[in-house]
């Protein structure tokens, strides 16, 4: 029973969502809208789980004295933003919007921009023509790097053409292969779950 009931629920829900897709009947649309609403409600609760986990992990680490100042700032941010939004509103001139624009956004952009420095460092250390495959990769990278800046367009229109060729043929062929693989894999997994063949979500029983 412990296994049969979840498998039956999964099959009914999966089959229902599959069949409603093909029906414009009002009942089918109503079923879809209702299930969709519940989907959002369940997801909203997962946000709460995330917040609870964030608070718990940070409090535990603070009590152990690990990176306490940073963790306190993180927790303060978690409390501050909703407080600002609730008491000061969310309009353009509100404190919430100010804090978002002038604190959160610059901090995140700064952390993200560090990537450029590591890319520069990695290009010097790691991008070596060690063998034939590495030479091909290196050549493709150089062509795309050169072709994606306007200065090369001013010199010659050949570089952008080569760049587009690299992107539109060899690169796209690889991406298509991956996408088709993902699509077939997702479809197979979904069918296996709906038909009760894949049962790892039942703790592997």
């Amino acid at each position, binding site marked *: 029973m412990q296994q049969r009931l979840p498998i039956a629920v999964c099959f009914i829900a999966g089959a229902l969502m599959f069949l409603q897709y093909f029906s414009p009947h009002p009942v089918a649309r109503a079923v879809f809208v209702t299930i969709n609403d519940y989907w*959002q409600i369940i997801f909203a609760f997962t946000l709460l789980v995330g917040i609870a986990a964030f608070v718990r992990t940070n409090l535990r680490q603070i009590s152990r004295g690990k990176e306490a100042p940073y963790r306190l700032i993180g927790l303060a941010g978690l409390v501050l933003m909703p407080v600002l939004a609730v008491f000061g509103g969310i309009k353009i001139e509100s404190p919430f919007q100010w804090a*978002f624009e002038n604190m959160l956004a610059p901090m995140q952009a700064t952390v993200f921009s560090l990537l450029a420095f590591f890319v520069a460092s990695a290009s010097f*250390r790691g991008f070596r023509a060690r063998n034939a495959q590495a030479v091909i990769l290196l050549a493709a990278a150089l062509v795309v790097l*050169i072709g994606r*800046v*306007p*200065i090369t367009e001013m010199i010659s229109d050949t570089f952008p053409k080569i760049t587009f060729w690299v992107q539109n043929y060899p690169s796209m062929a690889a*991406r298509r292969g991956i996408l088709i693989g993902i699509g077939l894999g997702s479809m197979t997994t979904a069918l296996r779950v709906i038909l009760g063949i894949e049962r790892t979500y039942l703790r592997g029983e």
Partner: protein
Amino acid sequence: MNRLKTRWIIFGGLFLIVTLSYLTNIRFKSVASPEIQKSYDYLDSLPEGSVIMVSFDHEASSLPEIQPLALVVLRHAFKNNLKIIGVSLFAEGTAIGYRLLSQTAREYDKTYGVDYVFLGFKPQQISAILGMGESIAHVFPEDYLGTPTDEIPIMMNIVNYDQIEMVISIADGALAVHWIEYVGGQYHQNIMTALTAAMITTYDPYLASGQLYSVIGGLKGAAEYENLLGQPGGGNRGMLAQTSAHVYVIVLIVIGNILYFRGRKNGKA
């Protein structure tokens, strides 16, 4: 120690190059690529009063690249008197989307609720996207500021995607794929994306198959679009910095390989 010193020299070089690029006033004349021209022509061809949906599907971290892209699209839409419904499927895109829409609307003297509206954020992207195919007001019963959606003038005649000419997803990740696969596939809606440069190749297969109408890609795409619009902005300002950084990386790759082959010749590698 030597390794650490080299790293700091590389970091310092990049910092210097990018900073100097932003301090100088050199501008590149970039020619619009076919993709940018296609995007521009489509928005330009829409009759006045047409409704488009702009979804801010990005995080705050990519704002320096996303902002010029978003601004150029919004400016073009408002300039042509198109009506905009703004949404966000990323929590962080919400405050940014609201600010960018309000800022651009002020430039063109547009009225909130009549010429544009911002519906805010909805969690669970796929569910929100599919739900709007049935009823936008059901998924967003209120706008970002708490006004009931049914009472907003621009939303009076909007039920679902059928009344919207195009969805434009401004994204820094794979979220726009959901718009393509669900809204494009199931509701036959035209989808355009404005993407960070790193994400362009991810969308190439969708573009080639016609599932995606067009892409405005990266700072370069923003710069090309700005030139078509005749309003140079953040895209053009960033072109020298991007060009310099690209050239710097190329030089580093070349130097790195020269040192590698020299070391191999001397038996060190």
